[in-house]
């Protein structure tokens, strides 16, 4: 057995070492699970984690999957820093897609350069307004934001289903639950012509760096951090908790909406009932893995994006269910939360020979 000894300080080494240790542990545990399922562990882990990078267009796919994760992870990191537990980003993502997609569908023939920005703004607005419902319920009625934001995510999914199977269904779509395709103008420009590389892949890192600056250098970022670490001290300093809840929900919701609208305009070109493979929930892992530090969100988003590609690769190459993406993500978060103990504590083994103290 072991006991935990407080270090008395925050270990900088383990703040960044813990995600790496967690990743290695996760690979090992996942390998063990694969072996248990009768799969060759090394090949499976290789297929899952490494092979997607060398596949044709692997890096482009990675960037496309990482963009929404980074955008949402950044928003969540600001909210979580302030102890505002928005876990309904999936719903805000969906509302962004609905608002942005709705704007695109409403302007099928417009060719003005202003169409795409308008679509983006519509998407941001959708996500933001949806998140502000949560902020309103918390500040006005004291309702727990974890539960309300999550319930709203379910509701958003049904709203999407209603729209694409009802009023917005493409009359030419042979009855499939999908809308008409958006116009090229509404889909927005590409970073490289004739690819799926939409401008979300540029926006994500830019916004991450901007958020890093806000959190570390501005009074607003400081206020968020104080609220999260010592709400009583925030009140003492005169920082309004309600205002910070509204702002952090608005930012995380707006960024989720932006992720949603980039996703449907940039990669899918229409609305369907399955616009997100759980990006909103994965973004929660991204936020934690990135240490709630917007700069750390970028590598974390890339890694989690890889788990989606890995799931597809395992499905195609090994005939496995792509559900292993979820398992891998869950284990990764477990390992990270466990490894984080090293940041504040030293592990002291008892009764075990040869263990280093």
């Amino acid at each position, binding site marked *: 057995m072991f*006991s*935990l000894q407080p270090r008395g300080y925050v270990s900088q080494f383990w703040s960044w070492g813990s995600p790496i240790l967690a990743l290695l542990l996760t690979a090992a545990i996942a390998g063990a699970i694969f072996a248990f399922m009768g799969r060759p562990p090394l090949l499976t882990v290789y297929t899952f984690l490494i092979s997607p990078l060398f596949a044709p267009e692997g890096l482009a796919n990675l960037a496309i999957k990482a963009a929404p994760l980074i955008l949402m992870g950044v928003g969540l990191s600001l909210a979580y820093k302030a102890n505002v*537990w928005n*876990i309904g980003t999936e719903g805000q993502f969906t509302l962004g897609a609905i608002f942005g997609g709705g704007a695109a569908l409403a302007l099928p023939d417009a060719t003005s350069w202003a169409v795409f920005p308008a679509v983006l703004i519509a998407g941001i607005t959708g996500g933001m307004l949806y998140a502000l419902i949560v902020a309103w*319920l918390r500040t006005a*009625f*004291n*309702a*727990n934001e*974890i*539960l*309300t934001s*999550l*319930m*709203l995510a*379910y*509701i958003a999914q*049904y*709203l999407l*289903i*209603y729209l694409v*199977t*009802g009023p917005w269904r493409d009359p030419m779509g042979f009855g499939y639950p999908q809308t008409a395709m958006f116009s090229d103008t509404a889909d927005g420009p590409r970073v490289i012509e004739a690819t799926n590389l939409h401008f979300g892949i540029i926006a994500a890192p830019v916004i991450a760096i901007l958020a890093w600056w806000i959190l570390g250098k501005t009074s607003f970022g400081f206020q968020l951090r104080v609220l999260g670490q010592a709400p009583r001290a925030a009140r003492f300093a005169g920082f309004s908790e309600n205002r910070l809840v509204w702002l952090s929900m608005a930012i995380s919701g707006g960024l989720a909406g932006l992720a949603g609208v980039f996703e449907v305009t940039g990669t899918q070109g229409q609305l369907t009932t399955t616009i997100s493979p759980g990006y909103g*929930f*994965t973004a*929660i*892992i991204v936020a*934690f893995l990135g240490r709630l530090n917007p700069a750390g969100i970028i590598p974390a988003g890339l890694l989690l994006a890889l788990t989606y590609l890995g799931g597809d690769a395992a499905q195609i190459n090994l005939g496995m*269910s792509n*559900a*292993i*993406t*979820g*398992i*891998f*993500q*869950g*284990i990764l*978060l*477990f390992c990270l*939360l*466990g490894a*984080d*103990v090293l940041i*504040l*504590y030293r592990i002291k083994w008892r009764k075990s020979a040869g263990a280093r103290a």
Partner: protein
Amino acid sequence: MDIVINLLVSVMAASTPLLLAATGELVVEKVAVLNLGVEGMMLMGAIAGFAVAHETGSLPLALLAAIFAGMALSLLFAFLTLTLQANQTATGLALTIFGRGFSALVGAGYVGISAPTLPHIHIPVLSDIPVLGQILFSYDPLIYLALALLAFVAWFLSKTHAGLIMRAIGDQHDAAHVLGYKVIRIRYLAVLFGGAMAGLAGAYMSLAYTPLWAQDMIAGRGWVALALVTFAAWRPFWLLIGAWLFGAMMYLSLYVQGLGVPVPSAFLSAVPYIGTVVVLVLISRDSRRIRLHRPAMLGRAFQAGN
């Protein structure tokens, strides 16, 4: 008349998984631990129960498997949050994310096939009483078990010394520690109980309520169970009322869809979730009442200063 009886019977069934999971979570929260992983544990219980029932044909074994699956996941939660001091909110979310993925992976081979279903009891004479027999004596055994467990938990928490210790730990863990109570050990036990109950609740879904396995079949019921505990303000009796209320919302949204009313089915499907938000808002408004009943240490880490 028959419609009313059928409604009552169906609402009882719809409320049972909520009641089982919420009873477990109530105990967990009474010792001031917040396990947000109920949804994940229910999914694990659902697939474990279904798979074992399909493979062995034995329902008792299936229920045991479900209980163990829920407990296994909750043990992981306990280890991370109680031993390694990890953040409870994040760990609970991890449980749900993992439970979703794992159940989907294991369950991939069980989609669209059948397994034995929990039978409804039939007590000679009693079950045959018109109306009353149907309303009181014609359910599957888990419904009775759920009610019995709730009664047991209510009695245990308020009347036994062990229950008193649990309430004390929820109120002031440092004081309990100083008096010599094993805070961490007791919390482990409570979390394991919560896991077992969530596993059972999941099995009820896949073996009785909709006797099938489908990916993500818990569909937010784990979260509703969490809301239920807040709704009940940590009081067992109100848990029962809440379970019936939420169960009724869940069932009615299905029932009305079946009637073919001219309302889009997606809206009706969303009703239980909208209802949950509305109920949460209504009960949370009175923050004094919540604070009065809420275990004071809820969600806070405890470390024995050694």
